């Protein structure tokens, strides 16, 4: 069983042993008629069937569990999954007389260690679980509540309605844990505003696919919908309109909704480029561009030469580090256009004083360094887009680099990990770029570790993210464009690397998509066919 990520993941004894045992048995072929997505590490099932009756089934805590009815994460999840399993079907009566030896009456949940019921999930959260489906009591065992959440999703996927309408599950034994600890979806709420409802719906779908990070690219050139407590003018002037704003309460709602599903919320405040909308509410923040020795009236990236810039950023990021509980903040740093800096005499003068010559990358590094230092004094860690590494910023050890440029991204992975930095892969997973046909196959077939490097280097790949940038996406088309294409990335990041059979994936994903549709997610079809329960979106 490979472990990865910042050398901090620990799989405690019992689960590690089970996982090790499981690792020896072949997995993919065992999936049979099951519709699990993503596929677990190890799955054994028998033809023996158990039946569930909606009126006589419940989720409960094992007497030995460290978590009990006061654990909100679990209580909420029990209610949710009861609905996913039974709520969307018409209940058929008359088949409720199930012989007791064939009935599954309870899923008993047992948390072995401190359950972390009131914590936020983190990069090191333990999501492993074991699931034993048998009658009359099935058991789900995990070290933490996060593993229980993943196991409940799997359990719900094991139950199907037979042709008489009876809820049925095969006797099964599942041992599971994620391949990568960082499995994210990037949403962009600046190019188009996404209503909170849409974000919550996305979190639901993420949980169905065992994603655990919502990368919230919250602001950009086009609009600044984040309502800051310290700088309310940023959204007052920089949002599309006053109704296109995320209030502090909206943000809390998203974070808590995500937490209950074991999903981290990673905020991105991209700078110094991609900041046009910041300028409207914060005077003198952006660099004035010059044309023929006169200010042209347009603005460029954040002005890196003013002290006021850094005192503003320090206050803003202080707020952000409090509002968003995650250990990481994404600082962006991509696609900085140097034209405006080049045109500005004050910037040129600053460059000369600092001895940067004509190398504007050094100016960018100077800026990023200031911001990175700021973040580390706030006891937070930084994620940056690959340019920040490429441009030789002196990154603090532990800074995570996100690779997004498609051209030879394997080489980039090799370089970054050789330099000892953890990486997140996004390059092959820009889902906003659409094509005719089954492009999920290409997302699915990506091999994240297929670069030259030592085992230590490979350990530094902490995961990946599917990105749905917002230029052509808003609430009208987000969901069908994202799902089930992102599901392909979901399985790539969760399941063992040998799980690569496209035919089997197609079969399972077709059914998984119908399951999402039934649960209210307007996931689009993979190809010709149908769902028993068509979407009424």
């Amino acid at each position: 069983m490979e472990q990865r990520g910042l050398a901090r993941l620990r799989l405690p004894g019992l689960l590690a042993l089970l996982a090790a045992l499981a690792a020896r048995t072949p997995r993919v072929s065992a999936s049979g008629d099951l519709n699990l997505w993503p596929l677990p590490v190890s799955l054994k099932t028998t033809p023996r069937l158990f039946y569930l009756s909606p009126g006589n089934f419940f989720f409960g805590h094992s007497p030995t569990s460290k978590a009990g009815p006061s654990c909100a994460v679990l209580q909420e999840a029990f209610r949710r999954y009861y609905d996913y399993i039974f709520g969307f079907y018409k209940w058929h009566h008359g088949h409720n007389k199930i012989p007791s030896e064939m009935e599954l009456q309870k899923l008993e949940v047992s948390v072995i260690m401190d359950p972390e019921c009131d914590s936020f999930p983190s990069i090191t959260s333990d999501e492993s679980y074991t699931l034993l489906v048998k009658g009359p009591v099935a058991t789900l065992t995990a070290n933490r509540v996060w593993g229980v959440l993943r196991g409940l999703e799997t359990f719900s996927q094991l139950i199907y309605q037979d042709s008489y309408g009876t809820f049925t599950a095969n006797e099964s034994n599942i041992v599971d844990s994620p391949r990568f600890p960082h499995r994210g979806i990037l949403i962009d709420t600046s190019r188009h505003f996404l209503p909170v409802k849409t974000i919550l719906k996305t979190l639901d779908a993420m949980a169905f696919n065992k994603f655990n990070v919502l990368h919230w690219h919250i602001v950009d050139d086009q609009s600044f919908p984040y309502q800051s407590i310290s700088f309310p003018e940023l959204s007052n002037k920089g949002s599309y309109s006053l109704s296109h704003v995320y209030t502090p309460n909206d943000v809390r709602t998203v974070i808590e909704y995500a937490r209950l599903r074991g999903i981290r919320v990673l905020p991105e405040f991209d700078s110094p480029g991609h900041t046009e909308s910041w300028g409207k509410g914060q005077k003198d923040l952006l660099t004035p561009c010059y044309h023929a020795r006169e200010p042209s009236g347009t603005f460029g990236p954040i002005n890196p030469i003013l002290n006021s810039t850094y005192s503003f950023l320090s206050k803003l990021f202080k707020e952000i580090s409090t509002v968003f509980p995650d250990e990481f903040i994404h600082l962006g740093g991509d696609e900085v256009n140097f034209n405006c800096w080049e045109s500005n005499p004050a910037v040129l003068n600053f460059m000369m004083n600092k001895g940067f010559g004509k190398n504007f990358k050094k100016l960018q590094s100077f800026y990023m360094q200031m911001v990175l230092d700021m973040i580390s004094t706030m006891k937070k860690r930084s994620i940056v887009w690959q340019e920040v590494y490429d441009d030789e910023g002196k990154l603090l050890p532990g800074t995570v680099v996100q690779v997004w440029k498609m051209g030879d991204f394997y080489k980039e992975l090799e370089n970054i990990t050789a330099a000892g930095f953890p990486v997140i892969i996004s390059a092959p997973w820009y889902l906003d770029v659409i094509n005719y046909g089954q492009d999920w196959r290409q997302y699915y077939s990506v091999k994240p570790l297929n670069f030259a490097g030592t085992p230590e280097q490979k350990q530094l790949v902490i995961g990946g993210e599917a990105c749905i940038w917002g230029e052509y996406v808003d609430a009208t088309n987000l969901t069908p464009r994202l799902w089930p294409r992102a599901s392909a990335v979901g399985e790539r990041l969760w399941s063992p690397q040998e799980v690569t059979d496209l035919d089997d994936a197609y079969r399972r994903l077709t059914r998984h998509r119908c399951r999402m549709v039934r649960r209210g997610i307007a996931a689009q079809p993979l190809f010709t066919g149908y769902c028993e329960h068509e979407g009424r979106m």
Partner: protein
Amino acid sequence: MAGSTLRFSLLLAAAFAGRATALWPWPQYIQTSELRYTIFPQSFQFQYHLSSAAQVGCSVLDEAFQRYRDLLFGSVAFRFPHPIEKRHTSEKNSLVVLVVTPGCDQFPSLGSVENYTLTINDEQSLLLSETVWGALRGLETFSQLIWRSPEGTFYVNKTDIEDFPRFPHRGLLLDTSRHYLPLASILDTLDVMAYNKFNVFHWHLVDDSSFPYESFTFPELTKKGSYNPATHIYTAQDVKEVIEYARLRGIRVLAEFDTPGHTLSWGPGVPGLLTPCYSGSHPSGTFGPVNPALNNTYEFMSTFFLEISTVFPDFYLHLGGDEVDFTCWKSNPDIQAFMKKKGFGDDFKKLESFYIQTLLDIVSAYGKGYVVWQEVFDNKVKVRPDTIIQVWREEIPVKYVKELALVTRAGFRALLSAPWYLNHITYGPDWKEIYLVEPLAFEGSPEQKALVIGGEACMWGEYVDSTNLVPRLWPRAGAVAERLWSNKMVSNLDFAFKRLAHFRCELLSSPESRHTPHP
């Protein structure tokens, strides 16, 4: 609060800029001024002119008045009191509709006149049209002229519009075989079609993948050929509902039953209909196109199309005829014998022609006209001179522009679809390419150009069902709609972008929450 004042005036500016330029598709002739009239939802009414041939009781217009009232004012009419704002604006409390030719109960047809004039000035507020169909188009335009100030007051500006379509056939194809579309999706699509002045719903009902049309003469077709015979079918009632819903919006329903290829789903319900394919000297267990060598086939088609001719009131039926794969026919010894008997040699196109010609004779005997895909023309099937050929292939055997020239030179009427396969998607604003297509940009005489009766946007269903249909279709199909309605000269992309972006938001924000196109 300098900030909020600024925001306020910006909104106001947007509203001003938005009002006259908000039309989609753009009318043939329009003159508009800054002079505006206030509309009070409580007192506003649509009225029939005393000398109108259509009066209260005209289903098409009565329903349309109701619909547009809801679209324009929704429930707000009863929530808001009269605004206290006093300006130098006078009030318009009605739109008077005058239809010249009687007829509210018939179906729209290829020959329907959709012209209208709309006059809003100090003296009158009049919508004048030859037929009820024209009145429907004018009502849509009128609804797009009304705008709302930030304080919530409704206005319409002094306007003169004289409008008519460039092409009489402006269609949209939906495919309910590759994926079943719930009735609600189809009806919603008809609504949005009306907003875009489309007038033909080309219903590609059945295909290889499934047979959702419930036939009352051959119920086994759906029982065995649909995805699920209880839920994934269109009953006779469903079909009636679609036809009537479309009629009330001035939209024809052109039903397609594609043969002899694309018919795998027909096979299970009608044993013997499809050609058994052979592997060596034995049947392989798989099936090919409809078997053209058997009399039974034609007896079946005769009965089946009698039903179809009755169920679908439009003069035209679409008979398909595209992409016939000859491999299976070639493998079958009975077909080979039939070919020999008929003297077709090795030319399977002749066999295809034989089938199609027999089918066309059957259908014309029922008093119907027909549309076929271009292969029927390409393969030189002898067809009646009034056949309509639908051009769908972009490059092969010839570029579609060339194909249009060939079809019209042979004297046939043509429909263009080749550049408008909206199921094909790419990253970015592909509506521009769709928009810039010029249907008459081929070499030919004026008489030839006159034979192009319009075009269709096609949304094939391989990757489309009710989850993604709406955002994939709209507003991209809107680009086709304007190309087919508006004057050829209306082709400025910036002007189109402004209006289309506005129109999209209009669709999203109408009180009845019209529908949800993608950005």
